[in-house]
């Protein structure tokens, strides 16, 4: 396979939702998602506006990956004292990072 990584803005097809017609656009830089925009068709001549804050589906493979070595702390669903022992946070604390 060619190793060229995708760059550009990709606009998805319009889906009907209870908020009206919705569209998602992603901005891809070197094969990674740099931004996600939600577009909504308004009633004014079909012009699209960006909705400021609406959670949209993102494929697992499209989420920006994180390397555990670079994080200061680890967030997750509340663990018990026992659960902590096997958590990434426990590993971070042991490493003294």
């Amino acid at each position, binding site marked *: 396979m060619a190793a060229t990584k995708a760059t550009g803005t990709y606009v998805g097809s319009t889906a009907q939702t209870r908020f009206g017609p919705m569209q998602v656009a992603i901005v891809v830089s070197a094969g990674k998602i740099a931004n996600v925009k939600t577009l909504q068709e308004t009633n004014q001549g079909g012009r699209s506006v960006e909705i400021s804050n609406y959670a*949209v*589906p993102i494929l697992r493979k499209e*989420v920006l990956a*994180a390397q555990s070595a670079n994080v200061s702390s*680890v*967030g*997750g669903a509340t663990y*018990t004292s026992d659960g902590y022992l096997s958590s990434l*946070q426990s590993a971070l604390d042991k490493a*003294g990072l």
Partner: protein
Amino acid sequence: MTWHRHVFETMGTIVSLSCDAAAEPDLVVSRVRDTFAHFDDVFSLYKPESELSRIGSNRMSLVDASDEVRDVYSEAIEWRAATNGEFSPHRPDGVIDLSGIVKALAMNRAGEQLNFAGAKDWCLNVGGDVLVSGLEGSSEPWNIGITDPLDRGTLITSARLAAPRTACATSGSSERGDHIWTAGATPTQFIQATVIANDIITADVLATAIIAGGAAALDRICGTWDVDAMTTDLDGNFRMTPGFAKIPAAV
């Protein structure tokens, strides 16, 4: 500047504190420990003689409770109204259970103690909920990894926390989900919800509400509150607000 890291157990979970040493470390740590111990002593339902246990077992009535307990209960009731009942301070059997908000309140108070003691750069992680101040190593925004609920040994992504977005709370339906009561018969649609907000109480309560209320709650909360959110559903699919996606992840 030297740094210190302190780990201790409280409220059935673990506190991991990273802090600059601008303030006297022993004093800072003892104040933070005392703060959590106090909230645990008053509000824990695992302690038979806590004020809340006495209320829950009808050995004390709410009208006779301390101002502190009534204030927290009042705040929890306000959050119930603000979340259409998706966050609730009552168990299905009617017992008042404030564990869904007490940990965040203790974190908020501990943060005030850290600031008061002169600490500028710190990161407080309590059982996976994170509150920060300043910068890591006095140079970079704190970078918080988000655990993959389907594989807890790996991260989904990471988010940098910097003022005013200093709080990151995560709720799940699989581990320690015992304080989440789903509103009505709606099945849980998300197995994990992370909310980034300007304060840890808002982040924690809304993450809980999203788990309890599913996609409808997610839409309403993201459209109403100044927060960013990320969810994972049972199939491992994600949803993210544009703001969450814009938070630069470490690569």
